[in-house]
């Protein structure tokens, strides 16, 4: 890379490191593996930077590549057997609203979603992307993104509500 491109790479690396690392972490739930994957993504970016003209293009490329690599890595490591949305396990820790465990439970539930659903939920709530943007990154129709997001939220809500109700009943006894 030319000197100005090397400077651009370092700026982009520092700007997007949290995004790339967090996307990988949500998929893999292992900080060391997520860090290694994130490093590999940035090394690939270094090779590709000459072809990515705008910073907007770089951000899109990083999200897409991180997401696809995380899905591949997740399948390779068999982190979670392939499940349908209905088969997503119930949380083992029952959260209260406002409970500090709520976020951890939600992260575990999201990590247990099937890959595509997980990618959509992470893109929507970590990256705050709308379904049209998510559909471009994941190469799938926006209608499928909306439908899968809706179904994922329904599953997550159901599992959390059941867990919360059960905890209430236990407290009453």
């Amino acid at each position: 890379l030319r000197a100005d491109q090397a400077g651009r790479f370092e700026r982009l690396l520092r700007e997007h490191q949290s995004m790339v690392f967090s996307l990988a972490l949500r998929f893999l739930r292992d900080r060391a593996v997520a860090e290694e994957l994130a490093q590999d993504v940035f090394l690939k970016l270094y090779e590709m930077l000459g072809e990515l003209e705008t910073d907007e293009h770089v951000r899109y490329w990083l999200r897409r590549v991180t997401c696809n690599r995380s899905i591949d890595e997740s399948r390779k490591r068999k982190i979670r057997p392939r499940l349908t949305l209905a088969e997503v396990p119930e949380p083992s820790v029952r959260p209260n609203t406002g409970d500090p465990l709520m976020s951890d439970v939600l992260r575990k539930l999201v990590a247990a979603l099937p890959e595509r659903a997980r990618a959509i939920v992470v893109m929507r709530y970590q990256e705050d992307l709308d379904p049209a943007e998510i559909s471009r990154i994941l190469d799938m129709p926006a209608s499928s993104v909306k439908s899968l997001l809706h179904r994922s939220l329904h599953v997550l809500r159901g599992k959390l509500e059941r867990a919360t109700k059960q905890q209430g009943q236990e407290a009453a006894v």
Partner: protein
Amino acid sequence: MNLEVNLRAALRREAPPADFADRVLARVKAKKRRPLRPWMAIAAALAAAAIIPAAYEHHESAKKERAREAARELTVALKIAGQKLHWTQQKIRRRADGV
């Protein structure tokens, strides 16, 4: 319970380890030091493809030249030996004839 609010809180970005960027930059630097990049490997293969047949051709022609030279030397040696044999035969004949 607002699930979407809770999801945003649960899935907010996390910072990587403090030395993450430095480690990536170190890997980039190490990669830059690697001598052979794909285009270099292709160039080396093309150069080898051009040089190896020429070198082989040169080697073969040098081998043939050495063989020709050896044949020439052998012919000369045989001629000399033939001449010596001829002189010896003549000497023997002369002695036998009492000349």
